[in-house]
C-alpha cells in the first residue's frame, strides 16, 4: 500500500473517531441532567443564582452575589488566601453605571 494512502486512512480513522465522539457528545448532552425539567425546577423554585464550584469563600461560592467591589472580603488586612481567589476575575461593575449608548444607528 502507498504510504500516502495509509496516511489518509489514518486521518480518516481519526476523523471517524472524532465523528463518533461528536455523536457521543450530542447524545450525552441531550441526556444530560442540565436539560431535565426537574433541575430547572430546582433552580427556579429555590431561586438559586450560583453553581457549586468551590465552597471555600463567600465570593467563590456565590460569585454573582458577592460584593466583589468591597476592598476586603472579611476584614481589613485579611490576605487573600483561598486558592480559588487567584482565578476569580476582578469584579463586574456593569450595573453601577448603566447608560445607554448605541452605536450603529
Amino acid at each position, binding site marked *: 500500500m502507498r*504510504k500516502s494512502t495509509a*496516511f489518509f486512512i489514518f486521518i480518516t480513522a481519526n476523523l471517524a473517531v472524532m465523528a463518533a465522539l461528536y455523536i457521543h457528545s450530542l447524545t450525552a448532552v441531550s441526556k444530560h441532567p442540565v436539560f431535565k425539567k426537574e433541575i430547572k425546577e430546582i433552580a427556579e423554585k429555590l431561586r438559586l443564582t450560583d*453553581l457549586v464550584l468551590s465552597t471555600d469563600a463567600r465570593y467563590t461560592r456565590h460569585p454573582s452575589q458577592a*460584593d466583589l467591589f468591597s476592598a476586603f472580603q472579611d476584614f481589613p488586612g485579611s490576605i487573600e488566601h483561598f486558592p480559588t481567589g487567584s*482565578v476569580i476575575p476582578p469584579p463586574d461593575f456593569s450595573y453601577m453605571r448603566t447608560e445607554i449608548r448605541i452605536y450603529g444607528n
Partner: protein
Amino acid sequence: MAINKHKNILDYTLQSLLRRKFKNTGIILVFTFIIFAVSSIILLSYSLKKEAGMLLKYSPEIIVQKILAGRHELISTKIKNEIMGIPGVSKVEPRYWGYYYDSGVRANYTIIGIGVSGIENNRLIKGRMPSANEKNAAAIGREIADARIIKKDIGDSLNLQNSEGRWMEFKIVGIFESDSEILTADLIIISESAFKSLVGMPEDTATDLAVRVANETEIPTAARKIKELFPYSRPILRDEVIRTYDAVFGWRSGLILAMFAGALAAFIILAWDKATGLSAEEKQEIGILKAIGWETSDILEMKFWEGLVISLTSFMCGLILAYLHIFLLDGFLFAPALKGWSVIYPHFNLAPFIDFYQIAILMAITVLPYIASTIIPSWKASITDPDTVMRG
C-alpha cells in the same frame, strides 16, 4: 489537478519521516501533549460555561440586595409593595439564605430557608422538601450527606448550632440526587421559620429580594427604577449573573492558556530549531533531490506535507485524548484548577458541549504558530543549489 504528483510527494515525505522515526515521534508526542493540555482547558471551561448558562437561565430576573457601608446587609421586606408598584414587576419574594460553617468537617454549607417550596415529586430529590411549617425537617445536598463520617441518609438527624449556641436537631427528609450536584451539592434546605430562628434573623428582614419581571425587555428598566427608589440597594440582573459566569470561565481558561503559552512557545522554538538545524544528511538529501529533477516548489511542498503530517496527527490525537480526559474521565488532571478547591467538592458529569468554533480556536493557537515557525526554515532548505552535490 496533478493529484498523483501531490500523492507522490506525500509518499516520499512519509518515507523520509519514517526514516527519522525517533526524532519525529518525539516531536509528535510533545506536540500532542501540548494540544491535549490546551484542548482540555478549552473544552472544560466551554462546557462549564454552557452549563452555567443553561442552569442560570431559571434564576430570578432581579435580585435586590441592600448595601451598607459597601457590604451586603439584610434587607427590609417592607419595601416589597413599593417594588411591586414598578411596572413590569410581577412578583417579589424574600430570599432567606446564608452560610453555615461546620467545624466537624471544616466545610461551609449554604443554608436556604424556604416558604412554600412548590417542588413536588422531583425525581432529583430522594425523599421530599421540608414544608413551610416544619420546624425540624431538612433536605440536604448529596455531598453533605457524604461528607459526614457516618454517611447520612433519610431519617437520620442533622444537628446545627444556632446563633445562641444551642444545638437544633433536624430530621433529614430529603437528599438531592447526584445529577443535580452542580446546583445543590452543599445545600441545606429548611423552612423559613426554622431558618430565622437558627440564625436569629430580625422580623421583617430577608437576605435579599427576588424580583420576577415577566417581560424580558423590561428587566433593565425595572432595575433602574429600583435603584432610583432605594439608592442603598444593589439590583443584580440575571444577565449579569450569567455574564459573571462567562467571565469567570473565560478568565480562568484564559489565565491557564496564558500559562500554557510558555510551553507552546518552547515547543515552537524547538520546531524552529529542528527545521533550521538540518542535519548534513538531510541537507545532502535535498541537494540530491534537486539535482535529479525536483524543483524548489516541490521541496517546499514536501516540507508543507511534513508540517501537515506532524501537526494534523498531533492535533487529532491531542483533541481526541482531551475529549476522553474531560468528558469520560471527568478531567481529573485539570478540573481542580477550573472548578476550585474545597472540602465540599461537587462531583458532576460535565455535559460534553463541543462545537467547531472550539476546534477552530484550538487550531489557531496551536497548529498555526507551529506551521508559521517552519516556513522560513523550510524555504531555506528548499533553495539548496542543485549542483552542490556535484561540487560536494
